């Protein structure tokens, strides 16, 4: 019954799309569409929660839609239920935010119809139970989000972003299509229940795994298939950016987990290696790219790439442990990965909302034109700071807990017998540690340059605090960051059914432990109590504040900045985003980006300004994408002559093609 209600909810979202076309330009269209989306996504989250904690077999429904001999199959098991929560909670937050944010939209008729359709698409992917429905929903989700990416198609490079996104989405779906085709085998079993029972040969399974890494990975944004992501995610309106980065990448992770952990059966020992390698490289490359950005939304988009890497590291470890019959370690690693899925969806949505609020207030995404917003937008600054601390994996917020669990899983891996993993896992651990430290640097920059210091432009100096709906959405997500950070045991226990369904075991129960500590294996081995640490820090900070104010001095005087005696009134003398990243660019950039700095000093008597030029190259784009692009351009140039042939030649071509095809058919038989 739950599933029927859920399908009704999704159908209602779909029905909202044509309604939104009609309401597009009306004054209340915005509130109606987002309000209805909010109600529907909340309903779907509640249904998913009920299903996650409910007992009994997963409900299934078959509808006579799609291909007549397959139909459309739907099913909600605990994995689907978990991802449904992620999708709809993100959707609900984005809808609250958009009720306020959407009022500033110049062309609502270009956004409103696609928004509920996009939400419906993501929901359908997660509950689909056959390959056909899955792929159709997947493609529907991609197209709906593409329409949202090009909503502001006249602005900057948005059209190019949409173009690259469309190509990469098509490429990813193609890989998944091939993967599902291989899984279906000769008998053509497209329903997941049948796929699950048919055990593919090891060669086929390996091929499917690689196709799943490519297909789902290109949507999730793993390096080197990430190139579209930092273009497309920032181009969309901010609440959609939040959904794309916070939620849709998680739907892609769902696709990977569904194939690798569920449909493919028992993993081989080496399966984890490509996943771990891709995860480690993605984590570090993502954050290094993010550090080089000065566009706030693009920085956040690149940072999504990093977090996807962290999730893949957790999933890769889980695959490794599963293959080597270490189910409890596998449960720990899988829980770490999935917990990070949840956490990232929360804080990434929060940060994109913050960036959206700044964009609305100032019309700027470029951090070099912002600054000092903490004075003008104190509430946005506060919630953005919460998001920054959470995403930098700092205690006591939620990002740290999932990384802590991932580290604990890595510490269990010396028991893995295979030599490849013995070398790979420590390297991946080092990459994870590096990415965690660089993430903190990245968000000191993002918050510091945007919100702290002095306003760099007049428009930043006059920014107004954002509206109350947007603030409500951001406060809701900050509260979630805090609760998931302080009481991680609740969330780990909520993930137990997923782990049980995929691995047969789950982590030990956490909620019954003293003081709400989390203990993944044994207390003598490791434990973490965020609540206690938080209370401890708060109490010691308060005692210090109280004692000093009462016993010593509480006097305060405002004066000009000290700055070693040479304060400069021009805000241009502050550190900028680029100058902040300069030491890191110098340490890492020389090899990763071929970074080059050239300084031009005018001769001593000249009054011309000195210039410093920084050159960065995106080596992945240059080596992987640009050659393909230029090859396609070259080939189309060559094939262009086909447009100008005589009718005789066309007929000859048609005839020879026919002969060729017949010949192929004859030899094939």
């Amino acid at each position: 019954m739950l599933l029927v209600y859920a399908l009704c909810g999704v159908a209602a979202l779909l029905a909202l799309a044509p309604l939104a076309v009609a309401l597009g330009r009306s004054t209340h269209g915005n509130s109606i569409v987002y309000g209805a989306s909010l109600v529907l996504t909340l309903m779907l989250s509640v249904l998913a929660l009920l299903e996650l904690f409910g007992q009994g077999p997963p409900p299934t429904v078959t509808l006579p839609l799609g291909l007549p001999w397959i139909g459309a199959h739907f099913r909600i098991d605990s994995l689907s239920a978990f991802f449904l929560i992620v999708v709809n909670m993100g959707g609900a937050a984005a809808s609250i935010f958009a009720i306020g944010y959407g009022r500033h939209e110049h062309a609502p008729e270009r956004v409103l119809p696609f928004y509920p359709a996009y939400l419906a698409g993501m929901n359908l992917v997660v509950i689909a139970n056959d390959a056909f429905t899955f792929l159709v929903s997947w493609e529907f989700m991609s197209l709906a989000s593409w329409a949202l990416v090009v909503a502001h198609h006249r602005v900057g490079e948005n059209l190019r972003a949409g173009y690259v996104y469309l190509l990469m989405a098509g490429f990813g779906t193609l890989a998944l299509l091939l993967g599902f085709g291989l899984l279906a085998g000769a008998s053509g079993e497209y329903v997941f229940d049948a796929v699950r029972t048919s055990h593919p040969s090891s060669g086929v399974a390996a091929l499917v795994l690689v196709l799943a890494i490519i297909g789902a990975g290109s949507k999730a944004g793993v390096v080197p298939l990430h190139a579209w992501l930092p273009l497309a995610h920032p181009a969309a309106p901010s609440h959609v950016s939040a959904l794309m980065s916070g939620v849709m990448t998680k739907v892609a992770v769902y696709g990977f987990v569904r194939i690798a952990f569920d449909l493919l059966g028992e993993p081989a020992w080496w399966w984890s290696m490509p996943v771990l390698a891709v995860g480690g490289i993605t984590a570090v490359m993502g954050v290094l790219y993010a550090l080089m950005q000065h566009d706030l939304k693009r920085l956040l988009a690149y940072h999504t790439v990093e977090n996807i890497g962290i999730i893949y590291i957790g999933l890769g470890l889980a695959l490794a442990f599963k293959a080597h019959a270490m189910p409890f370690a596998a449960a720990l690693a899988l829980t770490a990965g999935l917990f990070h899925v949840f956490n990232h969806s929360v804080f990434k949505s929060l940060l994109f909302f913050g960036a959206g609020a700044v964009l609305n207030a100032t019309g700027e995404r470029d951090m070099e034109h912002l600054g000092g917003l903490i004075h003008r937008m104190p509430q946005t600054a506060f919630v953005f700071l919460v998001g920054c601390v959470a995403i930098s994996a700092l205690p006591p917020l939620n990002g740290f807990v999932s990384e802590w669990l991932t580290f604990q899983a890595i510490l269990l891996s010396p028991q893995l017998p295979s030599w490849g993993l013995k070398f790979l896992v420590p390297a991946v651990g080092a990459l994870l540690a590096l990415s965690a430290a660089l993430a903190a640097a990245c968000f000191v920059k993002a918050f510091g340059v945007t919100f702290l210091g002095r306003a760099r432009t007049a428009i930043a100096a006059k920014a107004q605090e954002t509206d109350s709906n947007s603030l409500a959405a951001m406060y809701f997500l900050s509260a979630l960051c805090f609760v998931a950070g302080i009481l991680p045991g609740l969330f780990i226990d909520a993930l137990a059914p997923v782990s049980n369904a995929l691995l047969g075991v789950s982590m030990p129960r956490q909620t019954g432990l003293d003081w709400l500590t989390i203990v993944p294996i044994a207390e003598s081995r490791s434990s973490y109590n965020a609540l206690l640490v938080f209370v401890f820090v708060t109490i010691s900070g308060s005692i210090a504040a109280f004692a000093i104010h009462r016993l010593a001095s509480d006097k305060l005087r405002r004066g000009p900045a000290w700055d070693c005696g040479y304060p400069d009134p021009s805000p241009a003398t502050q550190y900028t985003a680029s100058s902040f990243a300069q030491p890191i660019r110098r340490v890492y950039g020389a090899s990763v980006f071929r970074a080059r700095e050239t300084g031009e000093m005018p001769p001593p008597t000249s009054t011309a300004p000195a210039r410093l030029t920084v050159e960065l190259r995106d080596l992945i784009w240059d080596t992987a994408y640009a050659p393909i692009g230029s090859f396609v351009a070259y080939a189309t140039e060559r094939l262009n002559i086909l447009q100008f042939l005589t009718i005789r030649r066309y007929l000859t071509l048609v005839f020879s093609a026919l002969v060729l095809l017949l010949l192929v058919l004859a030899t094939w038989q």
Partner: protein
Amino acid sequence: MAVIRDFGLQGMQMMLVLLLSPLFTGFVRKVKARLLRRQGPPLLQPYRDLARLMRKEVVLAESASWLLRVIPYIVFAGTWVAASLVPTFRSGLLFSWSADLIALIALLGSARFFLALAGLDVGTSFGGLGSSREVMIASLAEPAMLMIMFTLALIAGSTQLSTMAAYMVSGEVGLRVSLGLALLALIMVAIAENARIPIDNPATHLELTMVHEAMVLEYSGRHLALIDLASELKLLLYVSLIACLFLPWGIAGPDATVGEISAGVAVYVGKLAIGGILLAVFETSIAKMRVFRVPEFLGAALMLGLLATLLRFVSGSF
């Protein structure tokens, strides 16, 4: 009764590290001065400095936000809690299991995150310079620290500091290559994290050479006192951490008597004295390096940590 005793011991540890840390800094300064054949400031000078700063009024820049005023308390509280979780004179304290070594590193990371934000808050060039260099140094020091943690956790089979210390003292360890590499890397990280020579000079105010001092340039009065106390606590924390992991002898066990605990305190103070003398000798015998040589120094620490971890993964006997 047992709970009260445990609370008391935990409180004693907190007060001990808080009271000892300025003394330790004063001690290192004194030894350094004597090594240079100077008289040096009195041992108790850091306490006097703190008391004077606390009594003075705060002069806050006009462009400063509320964050700048809150950060000293966050940094101080975070560092203080971290320092009180490292076993010093007795292991298995009441709250020692609330944060393991990873959480401890991350807690210090939180403190540094906020301190780097403080450098950017007023919007001056020196603050930004300090912050940007600090995060560059941290981006190498923190992974190195985590790799050291990996090595030690794999040897001891735990990330809990109390369990680790107990395992190290049990004699099952013996001399190991990975342990030696980890110790070397940990010392290098500790020097970098505490802004000591050759990474940074705690005594300088020369603009172009400073990192930590540049970040906190806009602080004055009680705020500066808290920041200074936090860095003194951090120095003490790292020395205690090295002592607890590599010289765990003399730390009283979970069910120690009063006599054993007093012996533990005495041994701890002795270890600190040795650590302080070694630090002072090291600092006087070496020159400060350029900022862009620091990545090489810390990169070496990171590689040592990675090598030690790899050795542990490859074979249990290294």
